C-alpha cells in the first residue's frame, strides 16, 4: 500500500466490506460498516517539539515557516520508516480487530455496507504511525487517531474521536533498524483502537 495523499481525493467514501464467517448465523442486529478514510502513515517528531528558532527570528510568520520545515523533516523520517516497513497499513489490522470484537460479543451482525434498515458505522482513520512520546528521552510510540461515526437504527447518530497511543517507547533508530518492531508496535495500537471502537458501540448508554 502506498502512502500518498490519495485518500484525500479518492477514498472519502471507500466502502469496506467485512466478510465475516458465520455472520449470517449471528442473532444480533445488522450493522453495516464503512471506512471513509484509510489513514495516512505519519511520523510526528519535529512537529511535536516546542516552537524554536523560526519564531524567534520572525514571530508568527517564522513559526509558520518553521512548521513547514518541521513537516518536511517528519516526512523524511516517514520515508525512512517505510523502507523498513513497506507494507504498513493503518486500516487493515484496525478493521479486522473491530469486526472480530463485534463478532465475539454477538450484539451486532456485521454485514456489507449495502445492508439497509440496520445500524451503520463509519470509521474514518485520520492518521497513524509514530509520534514523539517522550521529548526528554527522545523516544517514540505508535499512535492512531480515528473518528467513529455511528447511526444506530432508529436512534440519534453520534460520533467520537478515538486517540490511542502505544504502551512502549523506543528511539526512532530502533524502530527503523530492529526488524518487525515498527510493525508489531503499530499493529498493537491499531488492534487496540479497533477493539476500543467496537466496545464504544457495544457499551454505548
Amino acid at each position: 500500500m502506498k502512502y500518498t495523499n490519495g485518500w484525500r481525493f479518492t477514498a472519502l467514501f471507500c466502502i469496506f466490506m467485512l466478510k465475516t464467517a458465520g455472520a449470517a448465523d449471528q442473532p444480533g442486529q445488522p450493522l453495516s460498516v464503512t471506512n471513509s478514510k484509510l489513514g495516512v502513515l505519519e511520523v510526528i517528531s519535529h512537529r511535536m517539539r516546542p516552537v524554536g528558532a523560526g519564531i524567534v527570528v520572525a514571530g508568527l510568520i517564522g513559526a509558520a515557516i518553521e512548521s513547514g520545515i518541521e513537516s518536511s523533516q517528519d516526512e523524511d523520517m516517514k520515508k525512512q520508516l517505510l523502507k523498513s516497513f513497506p507494507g504498513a497499513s493503518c486500516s487493515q489490522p484496525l478493521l479486522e480487530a473491530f469486526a472480530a470484537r463485534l463478532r465475539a460479543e454477538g450484539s451486532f451482525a456485521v454485514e456489507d455496507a449495502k445492508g439497509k434498515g440496520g445500524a451503520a458505522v463509519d470509521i474514518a482513520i485520520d492518521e497513524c504511525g509514530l509520534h514523539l512520546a517522550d521529548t526528554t528521552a527522545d523516544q517514540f510510540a505508535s499512535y492512531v487517531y480515528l473518528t467513529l461515526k455511528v447511526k444506530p437504527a432508529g436512534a440519534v447518530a453520534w460520533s467520537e474521536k478515538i486517540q490511542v497511543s502505544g504502551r512502549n517507547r523506543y528511539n526512532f533508530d530502533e524502530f527503523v533498524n530492529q526488524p518487525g518492531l515498527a510493525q508489531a508496535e503499530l499493529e498493537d495500537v491499531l488492534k487496540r483502537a479497533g477493539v476500543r471502537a467496537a466496545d464504544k458501540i457495544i457499551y454505548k448508554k
Partner: protein
Amino acid sequence: MKTIWLLSVVVLVQGCAFTTARLNIAARPDTNFKGPMSQVAPMKFDIKPLEDARSDKARIGWKRNGFGQNTADILSTRPVTELVAEGIRAGLKQNGQGAGIPSDINISGSVTRFWFEVKPNFWTIEFNGNVECDLEFFSNRTNSVIYKSRYSGTYTKKTGGGLEATWTEVMDASIEKLVEDILFDANLIEALNKSK
C-alpha cells in the same frame, strides 16, 4: 497595522503572555466511560496516592510570546495526581465498580506526564494535551500484583485560536482519554477476572 494584527493573534493564541494561567481541569462528569469493565464482577478498588513522577513538576505547560520564548507558566489549580485519581475513580464507578477499604484491588503508581503544548501551523493552531501514568494493580485476595501497565491519554484540537477555556477543554479531554485507556484495557480486565 501589521504589528497590531500580529499582536492580536498572539493574544488570541496565548492570552496575556506574561501572566500565569491557572486551569480548572477536571474529568467532565457527563463523560461516558462505560465499557467492558462493567462486565467484571463488582469489586472494591482503593486508589493509593499516586506519585508525581513528571520531569517538570512546576507547571503543565508554557505560555510563549510571539518570539517563541517561555514567558509564563500554565498551571493546574489542583494537583495532577488528584485529577488522574479522580478520573479513574469516576470511571470505575460508572462501570459498577466500588471504592473504599477493605478493598479487593489496590491501585498504585505514578503520573509521568501531564503536559499542554501549543503549536502554531500556517493556518491553524494545534493544541495538544498528553497525560500518562504507570499503574500497578495489587490483589488483596492473592496478595500479588496481578497487572501493571503504562497508560496514555492524548487529545489534539486544531482551531483558528483559543484561550484558557480551550486549553482547559483539551486537558479535560486528555484525562478522559487516559481513563478510557485504563478502563478499556482488555488485558487488565482479563487479569481482574482471573483474580476473583
